[in-house]
């Protein structure tokens, strides 16, 4: 009972932990709806501009996308192991969290490199930039690249949010002792897996459209 703070409505830290995990699940449902709205825009674009979407997709480097997919899956594995250790109040979970962070940064690095390449090749049809795509259905291809930047941009913003939270967790690591102090690791792992799963959807939708 020692961990019952006056601010909590729960009698034990365990009960509070169940509640925060449940809250995280509901938040993820909400997040899923946000991506669903944007995927509706994507679906509309792809139905309307099948040729442009397929040809534009082949301008993305599927190998880099595949590498990033693998990196994210590994980061999810790392945070899953961190969660298991944290559940035993094993403070070495911190090492695995740091690994998760590194993999996340690596993902964003590769993503940033891809964006830079696309900007250089003139595949970013917004902010007044020239669109250098010369295949069929240029309007459709431009629509594809707008969807691409919106979806990958929002995904990257979610990655940054996750990284910031893990960073905060590590910064406060030395104050964490009891099992209840580690509930945040589990909640964050849920979030991280969600962001990972979003990418699992984005990768084939954006990188792997069969050429028309």
């Amino acid at each position, binding site marked *: 009972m020692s961990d019952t703070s006056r601010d909590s409505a729960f009698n034990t830290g365990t009960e509070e932990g169940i509640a925060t995990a449940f809250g995280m699940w509901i938040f993820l449902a909400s997040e899923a*709806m946000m991506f669903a*709205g944007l995927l509706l*825009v994507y679906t509309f674009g792809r139905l*309307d501009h099948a040729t442009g979407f397929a040809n534009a997709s082949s301008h993305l480097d599927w190998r880099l996308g595949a590498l990033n997919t693998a990196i994210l899956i590994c980061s999810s594995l790392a945070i899953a192991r961190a969660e298991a250790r944290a559940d035993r109040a094993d403070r070495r979970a911190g090492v695995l969290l740091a690994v998760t962070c590194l993999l996340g940064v690596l993902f964003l690095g590769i993503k940033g490199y891809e964006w830079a390449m696309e900007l250089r090749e003139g595949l970013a049809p*917004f*902010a007044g930039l020239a669109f250098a795509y010369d295949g069929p259905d240029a309007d459709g291809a431009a629509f594809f690249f707008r969807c691409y930047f919106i979806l990958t941009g929002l995904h990257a913003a979610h990655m940054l949010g996750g990284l910031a939270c893990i960073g905060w967790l590590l910064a406060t690591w030395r104050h964490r002792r009891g099992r209840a102090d580690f509930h945040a690791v589990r909640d964050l792992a849920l979030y991280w897996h969600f962001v990972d799963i979003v990418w699992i959807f984005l990768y084939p939708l954006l990188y792997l459209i069969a050429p028309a």
Partner: protein
Amino acid sequence: MTDAVTGKAPDTGSYLGEKHGPRAWLLSFDHKRIAWLYLLALTAFFFIGGAMAVMMRLELATAEGDLVSDDTYNRLFSIHGIIMIWFFLVPSIPATLGNFLLPLMIGARDLALPRLNLASWYVFMGGSLFTLFAVLMGGVDTGWTFYTPYSSIYSNSYVSAAAFGVFIVGFSSIMTGINFIVTIHRLRATGLTWFRLPIFVWTMYATALVMVLATPVLAASLILIVAERVLGLGVFDPALGGDPLLFQHLFWFYSHPAVYIMILPGMGVVSEILPCFSRQPLFGYKAVALSSMAIAVFGFLVWGHHMFVSGQSAYAGILFSLFSFLVAVPSAIKVFSWSLTLRRGSIRFPTPMLYALTFLFLFTFGGLAGLFLAALVVDVHLHDTYFVVAHFHYIMVGGMVTAFMGGLHFWWPKITGRMYPEFWGRIAAIATFVGFNFTFFPQYILGYLGMPRRYHSYPEEFSFWHVMSSAGAIILAVSYLMPLVYLGLSLVRGRPAPADPWEATGLEWRTSSPPPQENFDETPTVTGPAYDYINPEPEAQDKGAQHEHGQPERSP
């Protein structure tokens, strides 16, 4: 707890007397104090939005556009809609009464996630003040709906700033929703099964579900507008291969369910008030509880009825029309249940009851008008006319704001520990009913005669109804200003309230008024159903009455 300085009886040992100073209020995790923060902010926004409405009605008192320019008028109705919907109606009952009462009604010390609760208020203030800033800078002229391509390409007002502010406020709504769902699942008192919950809690649950699942789609569509205006990342501009209609789909996917965010809590409030002042259990408790959930679910399937004349597929229109008629069924179930709760009751008419009956009448009236609009063919004539304006004001103002006022008076003794002046309360409630009908009933007629929305001038022949509506608006404005004065005065001058001034059932009445910091001195347990009222004048010989009294015995 050593509070020797406070001599006032009702404050001793209560959450109000616990700690003083701005820090103790602005950084408190106590749901009761956070409810106050919301109440003060929402009151301010309500009167700002109301002032805009009064200015519009003053302009419309004459047929010529003489008081404000057409451009100013566009900004007035846009910001009136934005403030009233996102900064008042959506958070109104959930963030104030819900925040205060939900833990009390289920016998908990606080909401499940108190820090998230406080954070939601700061997010709300951040977003809403940001939008208010956009208004002061020059305003928005798109209407509250931000329709593309006007909002994304043509409008040269502060659309991005306003939309971004609303985007931020959306997250406060999601935070509140998450908190309520977790709280209702995890913190119910021993013995408080789902079918023993007060209907107010059920409606909070349904509202929270809609908040959590619909608001993110609004966030997505608003961020797309901002991206299109600021970055040229256009997905709605036809010149860029996009589709303006896509925005309407995304927008109404949120904004129609949001209508239920704005009425379900009101239904919850009257479901508490009507049984209390007719001394009868709520008729058909289970049906009322489940119909809230049905409204939340069906509410997601009707968004296309805003787009009957936008050029969506006619087949989609038929389905959306059908679902719109279907969503009226659970609402009708509630209206019948409330009416039958009154039947053979020992009815008293204090202020909250007057507001609740006003709700019952106006909501029914507005809901029936909604059926006209849900019919494909009739909507072609009525779309974008004052008929629509009258319809949704009957629901939003006649329904939700009236319920909010009723709830505020009903739980005022619990929240403040003071009684409000009953005489002035009744005057205000009656003035609301009169003023409201004078304002909005003429608008049904105007709309039917063909007066379109959003114009600051009109042909002479509409004058009679417009003048009547403007005159009513003044009465309505006064009826809302009165409570501001007498409720404010009652904070210092009001008679100390007993724990249960209305002899109501429900856990919130089992603790002192105002409640202690921990809500209950002893954690309550529940052994019976909600609304365990006993009518002092039972008519045992009547079969119907026997049936009604049989209800409390029903097992959960």
